[in-house]
């Protein structure tokens, strides 16, 4: 059992970042299977894993895959080209044994393993990867946008795939460990079953007789899977349960042996039967300044006002009161387990509403009212944020937005601020999502000379360790400019039983690899 409190977690965080940085330094732009995933020397006793997920997969079609907890089901059926280490988030070989970029990152060569098969017995070869990627590129869906920079995908031989890009995409390798990297069976991709019961080359097959779509997914291990010896589960059952109380009841009644639990009820679980593991940071909760140039909301274009907003937030109190103390107060968005994270930046904006008020007055925006969408995510934090703004002489006006229109509201340009919770993806993606000129979290496409220079360097540097100084400088710059007002890194508490342990840390991609078996 590991339970981290703030100060201790920061130390662990720093350690994690160091480990990751060291591991990244050992990995150049080429990867290999030398670092094979979760190799184990002794045979392991297989268990039945039954895990709760808050949402059912929208579709199991490789072109429509959504990450998040939907991944528990589809990643069990569809193998991915690459993987990530659950603890360090290091990119590891998957179906692709090695990968190598050319000098300017416009060509990526993936070498597939020999002897992989789909559940039908057909071989997994380069043609299957090419067919899947080209189909996803042509098919409107969640995966399509991640192939925007891809010009072409070709098979140079049975086990070699060459992907050419219009320009280097720093996030592409990471994406190959999620939905983009899923491999479909070209013989059945066009069939209707692809959305609900696809043929895959992953470690499990869907037991359709025991599966109730939208509710319970039962998956059975494939003994002919290439990495079967490292899959410690005979079956994987994914139960879709949105209500945390229902999930907790299912856990206690033995229907589940792995689920996230609310920290308030952890004490009800017998420590002799349950492993409780706290991951202090799985997502960032922050106030995003959408109008950084002050085009519609001039106050937000003034760095003093943005800094004042950061000073108005009592992060530690919010962490305790609104997030049950599970998480870490933060003033930056980079993952605390990543290499970009800089502990010294915490303290840039100590809670000081008086100083914030002076900054707002100095900027001449005292009394200004700012509109912000009120969504299902903001309900609990609205009073605290309204009070924080009021304390520095600004007003927040919450405008109710239906859940299905929340994304559109953020992109509409109508609002200067937006409260969001963003799950960690990767060091290369997390900052790009919010600060790149074409980032989803930067709908007005704000940029400046410094940002342009840093992104230009990042987007033309193929090896991550070479780009790391630019990423770190970028992180420092966006904190200084207060383009966002981070609140906390949200944590998650996992309860696992039956000799199963949760091992996720820096990487929380929802796959069976988040769990290990300890007899």
């Amino acid at each position, binding site marked *: 059992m590991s339970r981290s409190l703030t100060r201790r977690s920061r130390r662990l965080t720093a350690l994690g970042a160091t480990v990751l940085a060291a591991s990244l330094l050992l990995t150049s732009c080429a990867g290999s299977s030398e670092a094979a995933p979760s190799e184990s020397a002794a045979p392991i006793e297989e268990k039945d894993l039954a895990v709760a997920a808050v949402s059912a997969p*929208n*579709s199991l*079609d490789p072109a*429509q895959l*959504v990450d998040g907890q939907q991944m528990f089901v589809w990643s069990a059926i569809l193998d991915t080209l690459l993987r990530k280490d659950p603890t360090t988030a290091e990119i590891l070989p998957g179906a692709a044994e090695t990968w190598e970029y050319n000098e300017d990152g416009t060509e990526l060569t993936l070498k597939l393993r020999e002897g992989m098969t789909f559940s039908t017995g057909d071989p997994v070869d380069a043609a299957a990867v090419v067919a899947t990627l080209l189909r996803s590129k042509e098919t*409107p*869906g*969640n*995966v*399509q*946008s*991640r192939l*925007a920079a891809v010009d072409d995908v070709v098979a140079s031989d049975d086990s070699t795939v060459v992907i050419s890009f219009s320009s280097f995409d720093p996030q592409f390798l990471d994406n190959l460990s999620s939905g983009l990297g899923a491999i479909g069976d070209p013989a059945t991709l066009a069939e209707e079953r692809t*959305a*609900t019961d696809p043929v895959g080359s992953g470690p499990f097959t869907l037991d359709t*007789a025991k599966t*109730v*779509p*939208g*509710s*319970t997914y039962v998956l059975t291990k494939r003994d002919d899977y290439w990495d079967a010896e490292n899959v410690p589960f005979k079956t994987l059952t994914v*139960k*879709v*349960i*949105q*209500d945390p*109380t*229902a*999930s907790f*009841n*299912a856990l*206690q*009644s*033995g*229907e589940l042996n792995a689920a996230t639990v609310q920290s308030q009820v952890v004490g009800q679980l017998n420590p002799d039967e349950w492993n409780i593991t706290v991951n202090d940071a799985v997502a960032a909760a922050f106030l995003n300044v959408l109008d950084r140039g002050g085009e519609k909301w001039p106050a937000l274009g003034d760095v003093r006002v943005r800094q004042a907003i950061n000073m108005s937030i009592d992060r530690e109190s919010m962490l305790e009161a609104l997030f049950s103390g599970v998480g870490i107060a933060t003033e930056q968005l980079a993952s605390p387990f990543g290499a970009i994270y800089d502990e010294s930046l915490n303290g840039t904006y100590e809670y000081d509403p008086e100083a914030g008020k002076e900054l707002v007055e100095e900027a001449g925006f005292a009394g200004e009212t700012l509109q912000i969408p009120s969504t*299902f995510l903001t309900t609990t934090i609205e009073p605290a944020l309204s009070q924080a703004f009021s304390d520095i002489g600004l007003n927040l006006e919450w405008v109710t937005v*239906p*859940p*299905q*229109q929340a*994304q*559109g509201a953020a*992109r509409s340009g109508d609002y200067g601020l937006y409260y969001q919770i963003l799950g960690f993806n990767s060091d290369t993606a997390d900052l790009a999502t919010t600060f790149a000129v*074409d980032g*989803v979290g930067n709908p007005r496409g704000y940029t400046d000379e410094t940002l342009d220079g840093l992104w230009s360097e990042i987007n033309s540097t193929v090896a991550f360790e070479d780009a790391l100084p630019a990423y770190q400088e970028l992180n420092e710059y966006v904190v200084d400019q207060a383009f966002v007002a981070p609140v906390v890194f949200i944590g998650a508490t996992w309860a696992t039983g039956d000799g199963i342990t949760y091992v996720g840390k820096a990487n929380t991609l929802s796959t069976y690899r988040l769990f290990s078996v300890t007899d």
Partner: protein
Amino acid sequence: MLVYIARRLGAGIILALLVTFITFMLLSTSFEDVALTILGPAATPEVTAGLMAEKGWDRPAIVQYFDWLAHAVQGDFGESVYTSLPVAPTVMQRLLVTLSVIVPALLLTVVLSTFLGVWSASRGGVVDKISQGISLVGYIVPGLLLAIGLVVIFAVQLKWLPATGFTPISEDPGAWARSITIPVIVLTIGGVANMAAQVRGRMIDELRQDYVRTLRTRGISTTSIVIRHALRNAGSPALTVMSLEFISMFGGALIIENVFALPGYGSFAFNASLQGDIPVIMGIAAFGVLLVTVVNLTTDLANGWLNPKARVH
């Protein structure tokens, strides 16, 4: 009678048209959000616009509604934009889950309410107080609390019944029965609390009527008076309460489905609304209106059968 049925069905269809039209118009501002749901947040405005044009979502809302209607009358309600599954079979599948909980709960509610109502009205005294006490407790205890309490006792502590999930009856009738037991008990207790009081009240009124006194003076047995005469007359308003109870149970299904993680109609509708899955929401609205129409019509016909004065010619 046939004309009456046709007229009621016609009114139901008009109602369905109105409800679906209003629903579609309210949703018509969300097509861009639907495109974003399909493409993901990283989609560029150009790609989003391209998909909207491809799907015809850039056309005027009224044109799109009649397009939807033209397909719907042929049984084609389109596909979910989120799962790509056809709407009609999916709605039916979810409906069956909810009905498999609601129908047994309703039957039990009717039987127990009738028994309790008749028992307390005809016996009075302590029996009446016990019956009213049961109704009162059923009213006071919130369904959600009751559900959680029963789960803790029967699923968590005793492990007799599952805490969550649903097994189709076709797969394993025993497991199906176990999976619906606690939801059915919760819905039944709430239903009985409401309906038993209605039956009791009507039965007391009926037992005070002149015809009852006349029957007694003619030496007709109390059982016959209560069951064959008074209950039949009291049954008419009870049927109306039952139909309302059925519709109310449908509304309350969301809570029950959430607590027991049942893949039913309520949670399906809730998620579709959260995701802005317009074809699914339209399908749910259409099926919901038709269901209410059919339930109301059936109630009216049953009322006519029970009470000749209520018959429509």
